[in-house]
């Protein structure tokens, strides 16, 4: 018996009367691989913190019930300094877990604390860097890496400590398809080494053969526990990374007749120092389209869309947005036509109330009747009644929709979304996408950067595939607007 949770109920300090965990009981055997899934705010992370003993030793708040780790109550361990000998955890915020100045140093920091000879330490480090696919990053400063790379470094730094129980909270949230399957096979290898692995993630198909049991959580309770087969009876096709940028099963895209494009990109080239981020992009985007730009991490998707509102200017090539030359037009003009919603809504929310938050953009464009617009956009995104709330108290999905509302209020014809479903659960993602469909029907052009294929295929009517700064495929689905 590795871990035993008995009737655990927990309230975070300073929160309302809803418990984060309510009467949770579960037993995890040594060598098991457990997948925890569920919508946001279901208590998945809290359960992980409880299992790692962090809740007991580092968090205030009311708790009842108990957690036993290796047959001993976690209360009896001498804090994290003793527990960290047995259990390690990868937190969901990869960036905050990277503290040192090079990837190598980051990974060494955990091992050196555990002693061992210099050769053993080096060997261990080389091993985890290799299995996590980050050997080529060893000298790079972690803060300068991409989201997916950071996530892999954080996982490597944790694995390096070689504890018998490893907990991972959403380790694949920012990874593309190929990196995700790498991580899942890595977890499977850990299981084969006899380690106990607990992972919080979406119910990805790759877990079917890897996970011993799945715990589905909802509103702080365990909803169901069972094998993957029992819970997800329908097999879904495993997505190959090639499918993100090359598809033979889809119809090639045919531009509509008789309409002039709203965005024209011609031979666009963009370099960051030595890296060629965009390598000769040429495409036309027509009014009213719903486009998904698919591609692996680092394929240049985000770089491309940042050119549409003037945040980036091309080194070579031309862009026209709604008749404006986007290589020279001022950003303040371009943002009235292209509204860019960033991946993380928290990079923009600063006001004390939702109303003020939306007002900020409206004042920038000198709106005459702001209150009418605010009501209008809030009802569009389904946030009526939140006007006086503090934006950061909304849920992640609501904050994401508020970010869309802030952009919508400025009435751009084109709405660009950068990874709009990261950090959202399936229900929230669908709410978000249905909102985009409604906006498309009301005449907006929607461009969305994503590596979520399900979302792209369900909602978009055109898919542009990108790889290494190039467009590798242009397809239409659902008939497109030309039909």
């Amino acid at each position, binding site marked *: 018996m590795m871990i035993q949770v008995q009737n655990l109920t927990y309230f975070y300090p300073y929160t309302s009367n809803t418990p984060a965990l309510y009467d949770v009981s579960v037993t995890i055997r040594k060598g098991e691989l457990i997948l925890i899934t569920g919508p946001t705010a279901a208590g998945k992370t809290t359960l992980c913190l409880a299992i790692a003993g962090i809740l007991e030793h580092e968090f205030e708040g009311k708790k009842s019930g108990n957690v036993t780790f290796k047959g001993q109550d976690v209360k009896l361990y001498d804090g994290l300094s003793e527990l960290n000998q047995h259990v390690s955890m990868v*937190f969901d915020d990869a960036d905050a877990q990277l503290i040192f100045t090079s990837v190598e140093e980051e990974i060494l*920091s955990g091992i050196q604390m555990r002693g061992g000879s210099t050769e053993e330490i080096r060997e261990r480090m080389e091993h985890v860097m290799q299995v996590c696919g980050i050997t080529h990053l060893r000298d790079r400063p972690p803060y300068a890496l991409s989201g997916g790379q950071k996530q892999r470094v954080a996982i490597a730094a944790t694995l390096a400590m070689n504890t018998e129980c490893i907990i991972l909270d959403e380790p694949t949230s920012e990874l593309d398809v190929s990196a995700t399957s790498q991580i899942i096979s890595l977890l499977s290898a850990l299981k084969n080494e006899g380690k106990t692995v607990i992972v919080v993630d979406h119910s990805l198909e790759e877990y079917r053969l890897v996970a011993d049991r799945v715990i589905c959580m909802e509103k702080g309770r365990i909803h169901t526990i069972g094998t993957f087969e029992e819970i997800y009876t329908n097999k879904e096709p495993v997505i190959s990374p090639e499918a993100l940028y090359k598809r033979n099963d889809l119809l090639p895209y045919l531009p509509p007749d008789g309409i002039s494009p709203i965005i024209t990109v011609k031979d666009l080239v963009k370099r960051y120092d030595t890296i060629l981020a965009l390598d000769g992009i040429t495409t036309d985007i027509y009014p009213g389209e719903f486009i998904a730009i698919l591609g692996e991490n680092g394929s240049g998707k985000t770089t491309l869309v940042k050119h549409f509102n003037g945040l980036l200017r091309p080194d070579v090539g031309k862009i026209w947005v709604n008749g404006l030359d986007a290589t020279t037009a001022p950003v303040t003009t371009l*943002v009235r036509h292209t509204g860019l919603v960033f991946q993380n809504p928290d*990079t*923009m929310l*600063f006001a004390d109330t939702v109303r003020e938050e939306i007002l900020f953009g409206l004042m920038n464009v000198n709106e005459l009747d702001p209150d009418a617009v605010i009501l209008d956009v809030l009802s569009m995104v389904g946030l009526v009644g939140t006007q006086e709330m503090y934006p950061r108290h909304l849920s992640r999905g609501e904050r994401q929709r508020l970010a869309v509302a802030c952009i919508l209020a400025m009435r751009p014809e084109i709405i660009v979304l950068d990874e709009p479903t990261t950090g959202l659960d399936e229900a929230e993602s669908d709410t978000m996408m249905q909102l985009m469909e409604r906006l498309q029907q009301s005449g907006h052009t929607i461009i969305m950067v994503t590596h979520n294929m399900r979302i792209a295929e369900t909602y978009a009517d055109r898919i542009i595939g990108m790889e290494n700064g190039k467009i590798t495929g242009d397809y239409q689905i659902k008939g497109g607007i030309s039909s």
Partner: protein
Amino acid sequence: MTEILQYIPGSSVLHHLNPVTKLIAVIMIVTLCVFSPNLLFLILLLIFIFFIAVVCKLYHEFLLQLPFLGILILILVLITVLTVSSGPVIGHLIPCAVPIIGGTFPITFGGLLLGLLLSFRFIVMILTFQLFIFSTKPSELVRGLLIFRMPIDYVLMFLITIRFIPSLQMEGRRIHEAQISRGYNPGSGIKGKIKSLRPILIPLVANSLAKTQVIGLTLDMRGYRTKNRLLVHNDSYTRYDALTGIILIFILIGFIFQFTLL
């Protein structure tokens, strides 16, 4: 992106020195700076530090800071000249030829000397400290400070402070881009500038605070606060450390010698 106060990878002598040696050198140079009343000694020290920077190929970072250091000297000299008057008058801030207000604000020899003395003290201290940070990995820094029996919580606080600088720079840029996408237009005039800081600073602070918990837990999980298990293993001192010791002794002799000249 130019990085402020970050470790710069390299293989110079300074990079290979034991962090303890470097810490001793920094503490000694800073202390001597504070107590030295002699401008010549400080200038020689400054030349020495620049020489080290050139040898270790870190002078490029120093050159970037020259404008900042120039402003520092100007302000310090101006303040002391205005507030301290001792010794012979050697000129006036506003030349005597200017009618009515001419001849006010006399520059005295003592005031000017004190201003320069203060400036050079600060510059030597700043550059020495920077040379230390540029050439020492944060993990070695932690090790060095722990050997000096600094409480681990303070050491980690120091580590996290340095670690946050580039993160804040990048996060700040991201927030700036996000706000520009909403038509954000930094205001003009001082009042406008201050007002326009709000949309940038609030998300910056809120997002950084949100990270602190995970940073703390990560350090705990990696065992950084585990008692009685300090990571003082295979500390190697090389001949470079010995050489540094000899150089430090020479500097100390120079420091004492300057008093015999008084």
